[in-house]
């Protein structure tokens, strides 16, 4: 095989590979891994609720945040802090989480629910320091 032919074959196969990767990346891209993302802001539960109720929280929607608060209700996969922040956890809740316990959770802000008057967060993970 001549050198020229070799370069053409290599370049073509690299191009095909790149296109294939690009196709998979765009059309079958993976979802964000919230648990591994670095939080952009940190709040106490009442603080975050206040920001959303003031209607100035657009910049936090879809952002990963850290929230600290007291557990006011706990379900299989859902924990509520101070009756203000509802967090859907990635894993079923750790049986060690107790009502009234203060915990810190990382998750993605989904938005403000004005029926329950809570801020909803999903893909949450408990942060143990």
């Amino acid at each position: 095989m001549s050198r020229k032919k070799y370069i053409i074959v290599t370049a073509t196969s690299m191009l095909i590979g790149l296109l294939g990767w690009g196709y998979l990346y765009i059309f079958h891209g993976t979802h964000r891994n919230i648990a591994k993302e670095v939080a952009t802001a940190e709040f106490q539960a009442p603080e975050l609720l206040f920001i959303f109720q003031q209607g100035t929280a657009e910049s936090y929607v879809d952002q990963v945040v850290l929230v600290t608060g007291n557990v006011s209700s706990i379900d299989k996969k859902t924990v509520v802090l101070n009756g203000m922040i509802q967090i859907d956890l990635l894993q079923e809740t750790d049986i060690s989480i107790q009502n009234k316990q203060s915990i810190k959770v990382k998750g993605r802000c989904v938005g403000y629910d004005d029926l329950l008057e809570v801020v909803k967060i999903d893909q949450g993970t408990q942060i143990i320091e």
Partner: protein
Amino acid sequence: MKSELSVLAIVTIMSIVSINAQTKYIDKSGEIGFEASEASFEPVKAVNKSVTAILNLEDGQFASLALIKGFHFENSLMEEHFNENYIESEIYPKATFKGSLLNFDHSQLSENPAEIEVDGKLKLREKEKGVKTTLSVQKVDDSIIMKGSFKVAPSDFDIEIPKIVANKIAEEVIVNVAFKLRGK
């Protein structure tokens, strides 16, 4: 006498509060899924497992709220397009339903699912669409379980489907709901 009266007043107020509290059944982690798939194309469907639903047992009034960002697609690009191009969730972050269960009598509920008609308005992108459908409603232990489905069209909410993908997205969107409400 004065103190007896105030005790009576407190007891009365407390009982009113507790009656009110018991008449509202709430689900804060309800499920709404929708599907607009066309055969032989990639499924177009998403589910939101953090939907709020409130049912007033006294009068059958029902309200529900789903945050658009809470809908998850298998395909992340589809989820992005859904949020940015179709619903424009930054401008319209939620979908709501307000209505009532017709001829609803909570004392009739049992473990056997009853077919109950619900009539109300679905609001999305500030556009309202009347929805009338039948829900299966049953009472299991302390929970009221409601399940059902209905159809809507993207055009009901002024959602334009670009021609290039029009054949991949069904004109009718099937919406499935499932709630497990508990007394508050």
